[in-house]
């Protein structure tokens, strides 16, 4: 049983789970559906481990398996196989995706308990995992696009999961539309690849690309730019970033799974997967890193200003993915993947803790209102602190090792790549401030109304169901949590999920300690061995130097946050007043939505209204109206023949037969 066999099983289980839950939602009790959902993902995780083990059994140079189930299409030399490609990179992604998904499924099993759409939720969630695994395991660009579009749909379905909430359906549409723009970039890239190389299988493409393309030739740069459009849209990088914050309308486990740990990192995976192409187009690779840097800075500043708990974490996600893009852009592939993994741990953990808090706040997400959670929910508070420490790169935690490894590599490449070091450290400073802004705002202090209720009665407040975005009252008849969540952090599923992730967020970095071990790098080495950059490593001493700098900056950021939000609670307001312009810019998210609105939405709307007022009535209606009139008069002409009389039809048929026979008789003469 080789790795490909296990790869197929990895795909099979979530698909099966999704279909079974989706089809049996009328008969299956909710708990059973949840168990099937959790079981399917755990089974996929087990198969992922089996695939990895069987892959490790191979010698390093042949550590990749391509396998095809059947031929999907074969037209004039264009051949698409329904094939998967298992190598260390995809195995790594499979492990991260299924592992984190398993924990989040366990968490959701409790978290969504009182929701009326429990079956629907797990069916969607399993479908998402299947799509993500398809994206990761795809053996060619066509299947990649299929998986890519599937996760786009799953994301749409899950953002709009509470479909009675108008803001949620709008956010879902926004995410879907922006993702489809990215899909189109991918389509064009796949078409260009096929045009220039004549193949679409990964192995064949990467083998042929260096023979066909010159370095930085315009056609390879175009391919990479189109790939980047897809990657940036999926991973919410500038200028396609506006959907991610709105995507927080979905249930919190969805935010944790899709919009933090897995789907949004697909763009990073794509760049890493297509690294042979990007190495032929250094211009595109540099652009990747620059966009990553810009996004990580801008998202960091926004995260400091906004007050919606989930949105802060969402902007932090954009910022962290910016680091990953910097990594894969400058050639630090394994460092980027390492950061992807640790980020999945601590960001999913932060979202889970946030979900627990939001449930206790009766769905209020404003951090200005939250107080005293340190006493009310000690377990959640501990998890939140662990997540924030890892996120801000506190020494010893996973984020410290992974983030600084990227920056070390940038420093190692030297030259103008130093700006990534500087920018990265500024971003790290911002990260430390905003993550501990959450901690210092929420945990200490006198309990607010909701937390007081929780401390006194042990139960969460049952508020009026309101829309956290608009404050409007909501119709909870369908597709909503029936009552509010009762569970806060008491439910065992939530505790297990958070505890395991908390542990991983703390110790996950130990996989890769400079000079001690490099588990991730050596595991991924067979995939990246053809890259000239992969073989080079910064020296151990410089790596430790970078880690030390990172530690200082992280602690400084945390200290500043402590000073701002605990020691001098009035300081933030003063700063806000003094830098009103800057603050307005940040809190309005650098006017990203408005810029997109002005540059894209308005012109498209203008074209639309032109089409509506001029084009449609005169041209289209004229054409269609004319066609209709023609058809109608012709129909009127032959209508008489449709007498409804059986014998009339028989007569017409006979006439035809006689005429045809006559024709043949005459021809034979």
């Amino acid at each position: 049983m080789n790795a490909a066999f296990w790869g197929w099983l990895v795909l099979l289980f979530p698909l099966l789970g999704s279909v079974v839950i989706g089809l049996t939602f009328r008969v299956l009790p909710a708990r059973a559906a949840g168990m099937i959902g959790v079981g399917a993902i755990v089974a996929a995780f087990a198969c992922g481990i089996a695939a990895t083990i069987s892959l490790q059994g191979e010698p390093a140079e042949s550590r990749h398996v391509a396998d095809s189930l059947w031929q999907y299409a074969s037209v004039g030399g264009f051949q698409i196989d329904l094939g998967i490609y298992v190598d260390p990179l995809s195995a790594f992604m499979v492990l991260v995706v299924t592992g984190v998904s398993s924990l989040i499924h366990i968490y959701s099993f409790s978290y969504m308990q009182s929701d009326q759409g429990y079956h629907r939720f797990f069916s969607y969630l399993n479908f998402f995992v299947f799509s993500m695994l398809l994206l990761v395991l795809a053996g060619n660009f066509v299947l990649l696009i299929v998986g890519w579009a599937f996760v786009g749909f799953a994301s749409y379905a899950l953002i709009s999961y509470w479909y009675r909430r108008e803001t949620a359906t709008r956010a879902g549409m926004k995410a879907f539309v922006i993702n489809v723009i990215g899909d189109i970039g991918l389509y064009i890239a796949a078409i260009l690849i096929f045009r220039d190389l004549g193949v679409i299988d990964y192995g064949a493409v990467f083998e042929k690309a260096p023979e066909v393309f010159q370095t930085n030739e315009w056609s390879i740069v175009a391919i990479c730019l189109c790939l980047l459009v897809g990657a940036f849209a999926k991973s919410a990088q500038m200028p396609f970033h506006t959907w991610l914050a709105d995507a927080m309308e979905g249930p919190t486990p969805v935010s944790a799974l899709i919009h933090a740990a897995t789907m949004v990192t697909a763009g990073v995976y794509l760049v890493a997967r297509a690294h042979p192409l990007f190495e032929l187009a250094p211009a595109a690779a540099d652009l990747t890193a620059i966009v990553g840097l810009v996004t990580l800075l801008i998202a960091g500043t926004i995260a400091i200003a906004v007050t919606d708990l989930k949105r802060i974490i969402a902007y932090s996600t954009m910022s962290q993915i910016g680091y990953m893009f910097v990594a894969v852009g400058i050639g630090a592939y394994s460092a980027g993947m390492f950061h992807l993994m640790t980020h999945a741990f601590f960001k999913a953990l932060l979202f889970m803790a946030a979900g627990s808090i939001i449930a206790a706040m009766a769905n209020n997400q404003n951090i200005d209102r939250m107080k005293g959670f340190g006493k009310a929910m000690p377990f959640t508070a501990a998890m939140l602190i662990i997540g924030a420490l890892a996120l801000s790169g506190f020494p010893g935690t996973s984020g410290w090792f992974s983030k600084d490894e990227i920056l070390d590599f940038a420093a190692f490449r030297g030259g103008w790549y130093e700006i990534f070091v500087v920018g990265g450290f500024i971003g790290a400073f911002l990260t430390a401030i905003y993550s501990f802004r959450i901690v210092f705002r929420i945990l200490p202090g006198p309990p607010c109304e909701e937390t007081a209720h929780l401390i006194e009665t042990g139960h969460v407040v049952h508020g009026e169901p309101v829309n956290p975005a608009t404050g409007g009252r909501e119709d909870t008849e369908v597709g909503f949590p029936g009552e509010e969540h009762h569970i806060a952090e008491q439910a065992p599923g939530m505790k297990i999920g958070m505890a395991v992730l908390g542990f991983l967020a703390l110790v996950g970095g130990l996989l890769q300690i400079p000079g001690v071990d490099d588990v991730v790098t050596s595991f991924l080495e067979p995939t990246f061995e053809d890259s000239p950059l992969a073989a080079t490593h910064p020296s151990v001493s410089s790596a430790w130097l970078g880690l030390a700098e990172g530690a200082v900056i992280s602690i400084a950021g945390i200290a500043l946050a402590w000073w701002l939000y605990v020691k001098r609670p009035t300081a933030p307001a003063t700063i806000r007043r003094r830098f009103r312009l800057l603050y307005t810019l940040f809190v309005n998210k650098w006017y990203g939505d408005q810029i997109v609105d002005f540059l894209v939405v308005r012109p498209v709307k203008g074209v639309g209204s032109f089409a509506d007022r001029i084009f449609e009535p005169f041209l289209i209606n004229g054409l269609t109206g004319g066609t209709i009139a023609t058809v109608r008069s012709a129909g009127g002409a032959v209508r008489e023949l449709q007498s409804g009389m059986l014998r009339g039809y028989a007569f017409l048929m006979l006439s035809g037969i006689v005429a045809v026979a006559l024709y043949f008789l005459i021809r034979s003469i």
Partner: protein
Amino acid sequence: MAIEWYLVLSALLFSIGLAGVLIRRNPVVILLCLELMLSGGGLALLSFSRLHGDGDGQVFVLMVLVVAAAEVVVGLGLVVAMFRRRIPLDVDEMKELQG
């Protein structure tokens, strides 16, 4: 005895049946006329079977017989159903297909 005679006879029977389908309006009689057409076809099959000395044609005629029986059963079932529902037994009256 030349085979042409048989074939011409089969064509004649077929045409008579055809004319009947066209001019009669009682569904029972139309079914009868269809039987005539089928027997004309069967006769042609038997003639060619005899001509080539091959028994396949005969088996085919048996199949035609079966199909005719099935058609009769369904057709007459329809006639009886129409009669029960007081629908006039006249194919010209059933013109819901009129355009």
